[in-house]
């Protein structure tokens, strides 16, 4: 698991609970306590939390300050992976579809590509996605209401969940933050998990999007087994055991094979 991600999880956990203890966090994230302590130290330096014996508490006003991160090689790779996944997802969208995108980086990449389609109605809780779609002349965006989360620039909460129930979509593209060895899908916040659960009930077809780098990780909030979706899109580089595992679960696994050079789209 990337440090960036771990730190995000710790942040959202702290925001929700106000305090945490090192041992249980290290178990949940499946990393050593030393690593968790190092992360807490970093967050303390940023002024986000205050370390205490065996754990930490949210610092006063700690979560207001936005932070900057450098783009690492890993991040660049992940961004290429997201583009590839978005490309496969695009091939599943037909003109005139009513779809929903839950918030995340792949959803944003997909939103940009949706300019190639016409007559779409796109439901989302992700603010940049909604703005992107709204700028496309023939597509319509519907932004779900709720309370904005500054970090993910998306809307969450009971209001969002209640709004989702009013719609029915052909295809739900749900971005998950982790798929564990046991093929459980997880996300980084409880609100996100609750929202996706609601959305799953209102969709004809459920399609999970997950970068190869996020397999064998737990993003802490459990969404359910992979058999709850009909399709999964990921990158070709995902470890073989996941390919065979998902195949054995009788779920369609799409990988972003882009090897053939012959001709363009015809």
């Amino acid at each position, binding site marked *: 698991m990337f440090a960036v991600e771990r730190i995000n999880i710790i942040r959202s956990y702290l925001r929700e609970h106000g305090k945490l203890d090192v041992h249980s966090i290290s178990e949940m994230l499946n990393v050593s306590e030393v690593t968790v302590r190092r992360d807490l130290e970093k967050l303390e330096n940023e002024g986000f939390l205050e370390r205490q014996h065996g754990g930490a508490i949210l610092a006063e006003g700690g979560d207001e300050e936005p932070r900057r991160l450098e783009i690492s090689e890993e991040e660049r790779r992940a961004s290429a992976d997201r583009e590839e996944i978005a490309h496969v997802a695009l091939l599943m969208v037909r003109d005139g579809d009513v779809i929903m995108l839950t918030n995340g980086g792949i959803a944003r990449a997909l939103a940009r590509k949706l300019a190639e389609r016409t007559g779409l109605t796109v439901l989302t809780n992700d603010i940049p996605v909604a703005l992107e779609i709204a700028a496309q002349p023939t597509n319509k965006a519907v932004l779900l209401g709720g309370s904005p989360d500054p970090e993910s620039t998306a809307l969450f909460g009971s209001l969002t969940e209640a709004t989702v129930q009013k719609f029915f979509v052909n295809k739900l593209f749900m971005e998950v933050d982790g798929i564990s060895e046991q093929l459980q899908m997880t996300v980084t916040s409880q609100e996100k998990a609750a929202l996706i659960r609601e959305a799953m009930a209102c969709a004809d077809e459920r399609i999970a999007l997950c970068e190869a780098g996020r397999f064998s990780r737990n993003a802490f909030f459990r969404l359910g087994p992979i058999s709850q979706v009909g399709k999964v899109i990921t990158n070709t580089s995902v470890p073989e055991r996941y*390919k065979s595992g998902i195949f054995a679960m009788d779920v369609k*696994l799409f*990988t972003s094979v882009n090897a053939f*050079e012959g001709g*363009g*789209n015809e």
Partner: protein
Amino acid sequence: MSPLLELRSLCKQFSTDFALENLSLELGAGEVHVLVGQNGSGKSALMGLVAGQGKPDSGQILLGGETVNFGSVPESRKAGIIFQRQDPLLYDNLNVAENVYFHRLSKRRRWPRIVEPYELREECASLFSRLGLPIDPGAPVSSLGYTQRLLILAVQTYVADSRLVIFDEPTAGMTDPEREILFTIVREIRDRGVGVFYISHKLDEIGIVGDKVSVLHQGRMTGSLPCRDADRERIIGLMTGKSFTERYPRLATTKGSRVLAVEGLQSDTVLKDVSFSLHKGEILGITGLMGSGRTRLANCLFGSSKPTGGSIRIEGRQENFGHPAEAMARGIALIPEDREHDAVFHFQDIMQNMAIAALSRFRGISGLDARYMHELSSEYISGLAIRPGKPGDLMQNYSGGNQQKVVVARWLMSLCRIFIMDEPTRGIDAAARIDIYNAMNDLVSKGAAVILISSDIDELLGMCDRILVLARGRIVCDLAQGQASKERIIDYASA
């Protein structure tokens, strides 16, 4: 009285994906027991255990009431078990009569032990005329066709002493008169009090030769009943079992213009009249039993067999390929059924295995541009997740699935437009299957066309836009994705 053969809860693990589980059955003397099941259901594997080809992990085999434990095929043969396999192994350098009596030559006379060629031929001729077999006993075996060889093999079994005979798809590819001869042979062997196992894909044969029928599905026995109660629907139901149908990742594509049109194609007696067309962006499935002509069809399209009639048009132009190179130049690729034998260069590295069909792309100032070859093959390796994945690795060290992905990469690299894949996923691991299915999506989404030849009906239903069923050299049905079902396909294929 104890039955001639009894199998008591046999189990054997063959691989992680395939095992025989808890199989029990009985065969009486003078009884024909038919075994049916889809390809890979374990029929031949089970019979292999009976004939001493490997030992069960657990369970017992009783012959005439006594436990036997054969360590090899010759051992079981000594005990009177004959396993007649699908591939007719005969001595090509000998004539028909010599092959028929080969295992009895030493027993024909006590003394002197010499072979009397004329006597042998006469005896064979009278046997053939009794059986109605129109083959010249003096003809060299090398001049015979596949089905004639199968018949010679059956006669060889007929003249041998035996207690138990196993026929493995003995009528594959045979015409009706040829089948009749084979049935006569089976019945006469049975009437001597010999027990017969008869593996078949043709469901009508159950009622013709069988006394009892057992159905296997994925290594388990799903049913065993007397042949008079075995109606077709019931057998098909037992053969299909519960299956996985949702796991095939197919991206819907839009069908483009027609790239291939086949009209009235004939090839010797194997293909009689085959017509179909293929469009850009389409995955066309073709299935059929062994001997239905599907591999011959692939070879005709690729220029490695010559059609004897009909026409092949590619993008509107009439083609008459005399050599695969001509087909490749027109954008046709063939991934052959027998990977080990026909596709893989075991002692060459991954890079060479990939580049071999696209060498013109690497033309450099002096010879091949090895740097570009290395670069491009590295891209394909990561594109198809080939592992371990160094361009310099020797092909022979790779797993079957990764070898197959290299073969797929080879044809992607050659920039063909029509991909004929003959059993591309047979015997490879699930992860490699996923990669190959997604590579097929990649192809059709970029306007290429794929012909997928397969015996795995779930795979065809999951991946194809249309499915053609071949039987005895003819297309017996053409089903669109929505109309096709496993039962219908099995029904047509085994008609």
